[in-house]
């Protein structure tokens, strides 16, 4: 049997992912995590000196803490299997990526294992975040100096 013929056979045999069900699950869990995030930021606004604008930072830190606990007990993996992007896109997903890599490579020692692999999964997020921020800010700076746009 030829390669193309086989690839055709494979296309028909492989089931398509359940798009609607997956998106619905991601929407629900993602929304739930953001609602929890809103509750956490409200908590910081009321009990600490954070305004709506500055409450984001402690909220993100707290969500990452929750992610560590859930990851450590192996629960985040189950949420991830159910929710997919619903658990990966929020900052808890970023936390899970870092914490799971750290836990995983603890057996190789703190320096080479944890240190060397901490950002194995989440490093790309930091890289593309910083690089895209740099170019966007650069473009905006140029546009402003030309006078096309104002700050």
């Amino acid at each position, binding site marked *: 049997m030829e390669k193309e013929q086989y690839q055709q056979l494979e296309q028909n045999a492989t089931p398509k992912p359940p*798009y609607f069900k997956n998106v619905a699950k991601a929407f629900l869990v993602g929304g739930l995590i953001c609602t929890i995030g*809103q509750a956490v930021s409200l908590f910081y606004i009321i009990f600490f000196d954070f305004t709506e604008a500055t409450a984001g*930072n402690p909220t*993100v830190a707290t969500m990452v803490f929750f992610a560590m606990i859930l990851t450590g007990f192996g629960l985040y993996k189950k949420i991830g299997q159910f929710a997919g992007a*619903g658990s990966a896109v929020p900052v*808890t997903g970023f936390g899970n990526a870092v914490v799971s890599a750290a836990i995983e490579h603890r057996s190789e020692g703190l320096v080479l294992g*944890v240190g060397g692999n901490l950002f194995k999964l989440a490093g790309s*997020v930091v890289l593309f975040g910083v690089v895209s921020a740099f170019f966007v*800010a650069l473009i905006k*700076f140029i546009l402003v100096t030309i006078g096309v746009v104002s700050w």
Partner: protein
Amino acid sequence: MAMTFVFAFFVGGIICAIGQLLMDYGKLTPGHTLSTLVVAGAILDGMGLYEPLINFAGAGATVPITSFGNSLTHGAIAEAERHGLVGVLTGMFEVTSSGISAAVVFGFIGALIFKPKGNVD
């Protein structure tokens, strides 16, 4: 204030739904999806669209990873406004540092406390 909860749920849900579509339909790995969303967050902030979204949806916009790209860009632009071109670099982590520092610290603590646990049940 209660309405913000509803908006946070919907906006957060929609961003995650977009991420899920990128993964299922676009056949991207989680790494590619998150990177795409971060870049999208940065571009949206460049166009000044992300700050209104945060005002509107609160945590619905600050919790998803797009807010990481947004706050990096926001810091860079703000600093560029004050100090010119070099500000683009120096201002990068001006606004957001808690995401990464929390992840690193809790990653380390997690590594000390927990062991990798496969599915055994």
